[in-house]
């Protein structure tokens, strides 16, 4: 199995004092806690820190770990073998390893130290498993029309010998249409397994909307900026515009201007009150103009001579 160097994980020397270890853990825990740090790998890093501290903070466990490190065999590939017949004897308080904690320990820990939890198994009364709360990001299209999504989470289980094991679960969930952000779904019995034959907990999933490349969500409405040409604006036109799961024909009124909003009722996020899709027009200019176009623009300048967009900036 892969060896976990707890000292290295906490960034402390092997002869660090208990105080130094505590300080190091607290500083790193604050930095990498998944509720605070949203970068990829932060959660994994945090679990590693938590485990390292769980072992090193207690003198008995730390002594055992040091001994294990000294006597075990390391192979070139990085795998590690404990000395033959090695058994953890350090006492583990049942309070120390709640189900919530157990979710975070690696296989390394579970196989070498997990056996101490036998005491936990016997003393624990019949208890309901913990609930798991997860957040699920869905696209705007999925929010409108529903879809199949996967939810991944890890569950802690206590097996017959009292060992605590982590298991990765993946569930396929069918999201119904018209799900909004902040809505909750519950999957009964999909939380952590119960203790001593107790009921499993539930899985709660909170819906979050993922950012969309084209749309901005404002309440139940969705906004999209649509570029149009100067001649489409001046003369009016019909253009196609993306919508949630389809394309729509939108009539650009004659004499449209940049920033003008067109409201497409009922094409926003569905729900008790359906939202609208709001098209924000933006007049776009080509960068390069043919000689013919330039000549026409000169004529246009003369014809539209009275129009001064900067009047409010003069004098």
């Amino acid at each position, binding site marked *: 199995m892969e060896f976990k160097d707890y000292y290295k994980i906490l960034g402390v020397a092997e002869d660090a004092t208990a105080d130094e270890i505590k300080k190091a853990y*607290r500083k790193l*825990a*604050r930095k990498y*806690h998944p*509720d*605070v740090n*949203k970068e990829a790998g932060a959660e994994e890093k*945090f679990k590693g820190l*938590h485990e390292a501290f769980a072992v090193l903070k207690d003198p008995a466990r730390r002594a055992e770990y040091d001994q294990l490190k000294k006597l075990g065999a390391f192979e070139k590939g990085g795998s590690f073998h404990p000395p033959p017949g090695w058994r953890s004897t350090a006492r583990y308080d049942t309070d120390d390893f*709640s189900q*919530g*904690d157990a979710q975070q320990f690696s296989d390394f820990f579970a196989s070498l130290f997990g056996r101490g939890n036998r005491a936990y198994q016997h003393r624990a009364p019949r*208890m*309901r498993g*913990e*609930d798991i*709360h997860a957040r699920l990001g869905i696209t705007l299209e999925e929010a409108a029309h529903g879809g199949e999504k*996967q939810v991944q989470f890890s569950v802690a289980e206590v097996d017959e010998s009292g060992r605590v094991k982590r298991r*990765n*679960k*993946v*569930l*396929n*969930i*069918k999201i*119904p249409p018209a*799900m909004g952000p*902040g*809505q*909750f*779904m*519950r*999957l*009964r*019995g*999909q939380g952590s397994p119960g203790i001593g034959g107790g009921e499993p*907990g539930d899985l*709660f999933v*909170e819906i979050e909307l993922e*950012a969309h490349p084209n749309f*901005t969500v404002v309440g139940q409405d969705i906004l999209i*900026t649509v570029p149009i040409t100067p001649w489409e604006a001046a003369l009016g036109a019909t253009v196609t515009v993306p919508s949630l799961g389809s394309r729509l024909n939108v009539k650009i009124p004659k004499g449209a201007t940049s920033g003008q909003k067109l409201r497409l009722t009922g094409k926003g996020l569905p729900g008790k009150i359906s939202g609208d899709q709001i098209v924000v027009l933006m007049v776009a200019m080509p960068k390069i103009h043919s000689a013919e176009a330039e000549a026409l623009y000169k004529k246009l300048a003369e014809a539209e001579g009275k129009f001064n967009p900067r009047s409010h900036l003069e004098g």
Partner: protein
Amino acid sequence: MVRKTGSDRIEIINEETIFTFQEICERFGVRGEFIVELVDYGVIAPLKENSAEEWVFDAAALARLSRALRLQRDLEINLPGIAISLDLLDDVQRLRRQVSLLDRQLKQLLGD
């Protein structure tokens, strides 16, 4: 491992779904006094401000409570600290989204 979940096992939680004070204590394995303290500090709020035994909570309160307990367990934060942390974390999430949105709009405007 992948398990197909039948749609009959998923419940959409609506506004009528509530959780009693007793149920919250059982789900989270905490004592009633602790829940009272959390409400006192404004970490979670019952749907109606009546007497504690009659308190009921919604799913959002459960999710918030779950995060509060994690902060307490993982970062050893005390209750006033937890209350402000949760508020700040909500603010940070909202601001992050706003920033990423404004970033996109700015790029569109400046024509990157």
